[in-house]
């Protein structure tokens, strides 16, 4: 039984993206279902970030289509995205968390209440009044997570959220992501870190040179990758 107003599953059919005469993505077809996190892995330049930006609507596809379920037009409001380097506003921590809620037109009091709730979720409530851009790198990424979570998205895209963080900060971010997933937010995340993919993934999308070579449950993928490229990638060989 699925709630009738959900935007999932997401159907992607024949998706392609060209830039500067180069195919970044070709014929990507995927179905992303509600449930455990989907991790997108693959070598550098495979098109992971571009795939997330296309799905989130920041880039327009050159070919194919992205079809959300549910009411037409309801999808944009129900997703959020986290970038590798968090873009924080020159405001307080609390004002950052509340900003997208103001944009969405929520009443002032509710914005603040939801923003504070999200700060508690990421453990930054004590820093609510501090200027956001004075936080450490890990705290900044947690604040970006809180800001996304405050929107209560149905699906959250994360583009290498831990790429520039130390292990302790990475662990904190992973815990928050797992927590969000457990509360029913669909996570779609790219990572370079295979250990992180093993820890978080429900299913794995393996991208290689702009194509999806595999999309399978994580335990099957890691136990026995189905393509030589994935075998080589998991084996730590240099694949490109």
């Amino acid at each position: 039984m699925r709630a009738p107003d959900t935007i999932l599953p997401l159907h992607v059919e024949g998706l392609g993206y060209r830039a500067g005469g180069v195919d970044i993505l070709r014929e990507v077809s995927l179905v992303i279902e509600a449930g455990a996190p989907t991790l997108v892995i693959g070598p550098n330049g495979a098109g992971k970030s571009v795939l997330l930006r296309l799905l989130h609507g920041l880039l327009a596809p050159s070919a194919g289509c992205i079809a959300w379920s549910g009411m037409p037009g309801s999808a944009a409001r129900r997703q959020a995205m986290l970038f590798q380097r968090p873009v924080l506003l020159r405001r307080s921590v609390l004002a950052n968390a509340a900003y997208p809620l103001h944009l969405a037109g929520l009443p002032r009091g509710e914005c603040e209440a939801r923003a504070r709730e999200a700060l508690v979720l990421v453990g930054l409530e004590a820093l609510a009044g501090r200027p956001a851009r004075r936080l450490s790198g890990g705290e900044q990424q947690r604040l970006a997570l809180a800001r996304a979570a405050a929107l209560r998205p149905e699906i959250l895209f994360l583009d290498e959220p831990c790429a520039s963080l130390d292990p302790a900060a990475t662990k904190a971010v992973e815990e928050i992501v797992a927590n969000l997933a457990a509360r029913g937010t669909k996570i779609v995340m790219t990572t370079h870190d295979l250990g992180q993919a093993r820890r978080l993934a429900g299913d794995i999308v393996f991208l290689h040179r702009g194509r999806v070579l595999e999309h399978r449950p994580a335990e099957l993928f890691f136990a026995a990758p189905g393509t030589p490229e994935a075998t080589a990638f998991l084996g730590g060989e240099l694949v490109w």
Partner: protein
Amino acid sequence: MNDLGSAFSTALSLVASADPAVAQIVLLSLRVSLTAVALAALVGLPIGALLAVSRFPGRGGVIVALNALMGLPPVVAGLVIYLLLSRSGPLGPLGLLFTPTAMVVAQAVLIAPILAALARQVLEGLWEEYAEQLRSFGAGPRRAVPTLLWDGRFALLTVLLAGFGRAAAEVGAVMVVGGNIEGFTRVMTTAIALETSKGDLPLALALGLVLMAIVLGVNALAQAMRDAAAQWAG
């Protein structure tokens, strides 16, 4: 040399005793220039922000024109406003010529392009940084304008101070549309020009000292603002 020395000491005593004639001129100067900056900011800053976020054919030309207007000679700005406000001009019936209001309008016209051009430069960098994240939140360029104006507030304050410095120091525009009427439209710069040509050096020097002090104070304020911004924004 002796003349200059005595003029200087008279000037200092005029400032120190807060001479009512001097005080009136200084206060009118501040009122006119501050009001002009406020008016110009209302128009110039949003235009600068819009220009920073929008992409349209001819945008490069608009930016070049705006940058050129930064060097608009004050007397030319004054002349244009004079023609509009003169009795036979389109706005003649308002009877604003040779009033402080006309001086405010002329200075606002003079500095609005400066504020817009500087704001565009400052906010373009900010927009580059914010654009993708704001689009992710569903905010397009137009909705981004108030966000950029607020997040660029420290840099924009220095822009405003630059505009104020220009307005307070110019003489051409206020002379042409204000007429330098004693007790009514006489401001520091026009008074200095008149008193110097009349040979009343102490009054001219006294006003010059006050003007210098104001300009220095404004620049010190701008520096403090930049430091505070660096402290806050990291």
